């Protein structure tokens, strides 16, 4: 059973080859570090003094701040829809459902592939952050990245927390993508909910609002309870469980498949 699930997940991964979802994962991970490299090389007088004592912490912060505030959520919404759309665009759902696979297998293997994409994006983002720092230092020697060790542990800790904070939205967008064959509607829904999140981010109940979890987990949240970030991570897991259940029921009980 497990072996068949692994084979099916491999098949789902192969479907993503040369797709917009894969390109988005690679280019999305490179985008922020690339902008920061340009920024720091072009304005050394401004940035070198800021990075004098602890260059890696500042550099990682520059990269993660933009990701946590905006790009990560955009990426999650887009990549989830793009992966689900591979079946709709190629009218392939009906073929998927005529293979001898259980509904649970079909549902979970695709979700696992989306998660693998997101994890790949996090790993690549980390690698591009490191590579970007070394590139900056090799071009502009006043930066002292080479004199300090890379804080791998801290980077992994941030990445892990941020990944967990996206679980809720991954599951919600996956459920919406399976339910609605149109590409634009789940995408628009995600973007609207994300925008609303920004408008209500000072709300005391914001810890129940999944689209703000990366923001709450990464940034300090003045005016909100001290354990907001912790609650956000916990709620992210709960929301994921709820929407995975909705999604599975959607796949297994709908009368018309494909």
């Amino acid at each position, binding site marked *: 059973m497990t072996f*068949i699930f692994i*084979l*099916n997940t*491999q*098949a789902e991964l*192969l*479907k993503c*080859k*040369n*797709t917009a979802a894969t390109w988005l994962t690679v280019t999305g991970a490179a985008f922020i570090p690339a902008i920061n490299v340009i920024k720091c090389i072009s304005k050394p007088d401004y940035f070198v003094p800021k990075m004098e004592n602890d260059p890696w912490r500042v550099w990682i912060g520059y990269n993660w701040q933009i990701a946590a505030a905006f790009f990560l959520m955009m990426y999650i919404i887009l990549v989830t829809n793009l992966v689900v759309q*591979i079946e709709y*665009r*190629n*009218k*392939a*759902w*009906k*073929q*998927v*459902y*005529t*293979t*001898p*696979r*259980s509904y649970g297998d079909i549902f979970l293997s695709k979700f696992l592939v989306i998660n693998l994409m997101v994890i790949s994006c996090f790993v690549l983002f980390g690698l591009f952050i490191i590579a970007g720092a070394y590139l900056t230092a090799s071009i502009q020697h006043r930066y002292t990245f080479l004199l300090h060790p890379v804080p791998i542990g801290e980077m992994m800790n941030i990445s892990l927390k941020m990944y967990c904070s996206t679980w809720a939205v991954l599951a919600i967008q996956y459920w919406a993508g399976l339910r609605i064959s149109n590409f634009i509607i789940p995408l628009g829904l995600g973007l609207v909910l994300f925008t609303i999140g920004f408008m209500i981010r000072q709300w005391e109940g914001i810890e129940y609002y999944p689209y703000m979890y990366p923001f709450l987990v990464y940034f300090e949240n003045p005016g909100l309870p001290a354990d907001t970030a912790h609650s956000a991570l916990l709620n992210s897991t709960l929301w994921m469980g709820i929407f995975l259940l909705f999604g599975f029921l959607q796949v297994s009980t709908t*009368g*018309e*498949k*494909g």
Partner: protein
Amino acid sequence: MGHLIAQTHHLNFSFSSSKQLLHDLNLNIPQGSIYCFLGPNGAGKTTTLRLLLGLLKADQNAISIFDQQLFFNRMSILRRVGALIEEPSVYLHLTGRENLKIYRLCYSCDKKRVDEVLEIVDLHHADKQPVKTYSLGMKQRLGIAIALLHDPEFLILDEPTNGLDPQGIIEIRLLIKRLNTDFLKTILISSHLLSEVEKIATHFGIIHKGRLLFQGSREALLKLKSDSHSVELETTNNEKAAVLLGDRFRIRKINHAVLQVSSVGKEEIPTLSAFLVKKNIGIYRIGVLANNLEDIFIEMVSS
């Protein structure tokens, strides 16, 4: 009739309570046959095939394949069934070989099957080409290759020649014939054009507005053909002749020049002409129209 590979038992289906799409359908598909499921567009062919594959939900006991009820044995049945429903479900951004690899993994079958099916459908030369560059005929053949990958006993092909040029239709027709004779596959193929499949089908099921109008072997359908004729007449008064004959026969076509009467038994032709003469209608010309399977099909669905 030999052993049945698939059966439906009083199969009814509707998407909404207001419009029933299938009415009491009892399909019997013999093992080893090329069963042609015929009907005009919207007759319920694709709906029936989707029900047979579990893409639509039917009543628990309505469908059995390989003597197992589909409702309870979906996965074990699908392991032995290959399908091509409507247009081929292929990933356009991948190559033909990569598409086959995806389904090879899903069916957990041997790597060598990819080359074997590429050989069967004659796509070996284009296996590394992205599918988006394939012609429609090549995509259809790739779809059939996917359906064949796990060496199923039963193939369900929904209008596999749809949209193809005459050359493509001939290629697919030959391939289907070969799959039946050389690889011993039972094939259920749907079409809205009898001319496309009459050369290869061993059995026919004719459906119209969700009801099965005919089901039987090729011989049984040909017997209908020999039993029933269409007669063309040219008389002194075609309108009056049509009224007189309309009680007993089906009037197929009438204008000032000709009157066509269908469903006429061979022995009834002399009676028909004598009857018109007795009613003072002169006959200039009377002839039996060449009656092919297409006529029978059209007659069935239009009556």
